[in-house]
């Protein structure tokens, strides 16, 4: 990719992110001011409007990284690796939201900050796995080796997730836990549903904007390194 193209992508990404940020503000406004309070859970239920969409974007990001890792080992195209790495970093940002708003919702509604249910445990380990992914990338200098090794982790992670899910499921069925209200199970009334769906859309948009920016950043850094190495030789 040429410098001009990458810069165009960066500009478009920034634009998309800006639009998504404005839309996020609108979602905040709608969720906080114009969406009715749920009767049993109280205001804390509204956390759900940011928590679930952030979790969705985070997991989407990691799934994209995993699938692109498979694709990289097949095609060996550096661009694929750069998108995978971009998605992994963006995913970490969303995961931080997911892992902080989750307990903030759980404490008032479940009565506990953290519970080792399948969903929480899986997401925690996916998060940790991708922290490892980033650390590994940072420890390898050669871009081609970095791409191959992080792809291996991406693929292993993709396969690991269902196993962790299954592990926790088996663990839980042996030790029944206090009744947990599953978020999202009761059908939400219209107003709330619209807020939630809008938020999902906005977070997806935000993911795409971040991804475009981060990918453009990766490409630009790559080009800069290339220029530097050309200047040396």
């Amino acid at each position, binding site marked *: 990719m040429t410098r001009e193209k990458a810069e165009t992508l960066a500009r478009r990404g920034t634009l998309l992110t800006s639009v998504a940020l404005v839309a996020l503000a609108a979602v905040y406004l709608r969720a906080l001011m114009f969406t009715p309070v749920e009767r049993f859970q109280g205001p804390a239920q509204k956390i759900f409007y940011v928590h679930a969409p952030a979790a969705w974007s985070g997991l989407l990001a990691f799934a994209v990284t995993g699938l692109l890792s498979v694709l990289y080992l097949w095609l060996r195209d550096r661009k694929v690796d750069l998108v995978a790495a971009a998605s992994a970093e963006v995913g970490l940002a969303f995961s931080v939201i997911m892992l902080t708003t989750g307990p903030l919702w759980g404490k008032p509604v479940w009565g506990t900050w953290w519970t080792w249910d399948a969903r929480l445990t899986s997401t925690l380990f996916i998060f940790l796995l991708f922290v490892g992914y980033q650390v590994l990338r940072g420890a390898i200098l050669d871009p081609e080796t970095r791409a191959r090794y992080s792809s*291996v982790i991406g693929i292993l992670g993709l396969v690991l997730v269902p*196993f*962790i899910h299954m592990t926790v499921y088996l663990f839980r069925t042996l030790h029944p836990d206090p009744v947990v209200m599953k978020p999202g199970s009761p059908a939400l009334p219209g107003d709330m549903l619209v807020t939630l769906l809008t938020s999902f859309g906005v977070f997806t948009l935000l993911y795409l904007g971040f991804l475009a920016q981060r990918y453009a950043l990766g490409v630009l850094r790559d080009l800069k390194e290339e220029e530097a190495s050309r200047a040396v030789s």
Partner: protein
Amino acid sequence: MRDALRAAWTIAGKDLAIEWRTKTALVSSLTFAVLVLAVLYFARDPTAVGAVDIAPGALWVTFTFAAMIGLNRAFLLERENRAMDGIMLAPVSPQAVFFGKLAANLVFVGTVELVSLPLFILFYDVPIVRGLPALVGITAMATLAFVAVGTLLSSMVVRTRFAELMLPLLLLPFLVPPVVGAVQATARILADRPLSEVEGWLKLLAAFDIVFVTLSTFLFEATLEE
């Protein structure tokens, strides 16, 4: 296929011969295992928690952490004088190399487990007679699972900076299914309960073994220099 097995056998034999001669990793792993077993015995409130209650967890923390020491050095050997280049120049498939390294690591970890298991029974005074074959079987299944992934990861981390820190960071998430499964099964066995109670765990362990041994075998090629 026969050539591949012979090559794997040759590589495993070479690794074990070297390990036997130097013994540094084996001695440190064993010492480490004994230390962990002893320390974990005291990591509880003796008036509230019996040793046997923490025994399954203690056993598996010991096994996995001691194994990590062995895994860390598995590819240092090949890295030292770039002996891996010599292996790759021979008509040997990457899969055969992986199986050879895996086999050597399994023997290494198996030896550590074999020595620490009687110590564990002694230290924690666990009532185990009938359950011993079952415990050995569970140990074999769980060990295969994490040593396979560990061997693959070890081949990558030796080529990175901070290799010793990197392996636990990357490997620990993959320990969750096999180790949780093994701890659950071990607890049943120590409580003298029938293994049918943990059928789900056995299936999970078996599935993990099949999936991750296969996956690691084929991903290994991508960890070699090219």
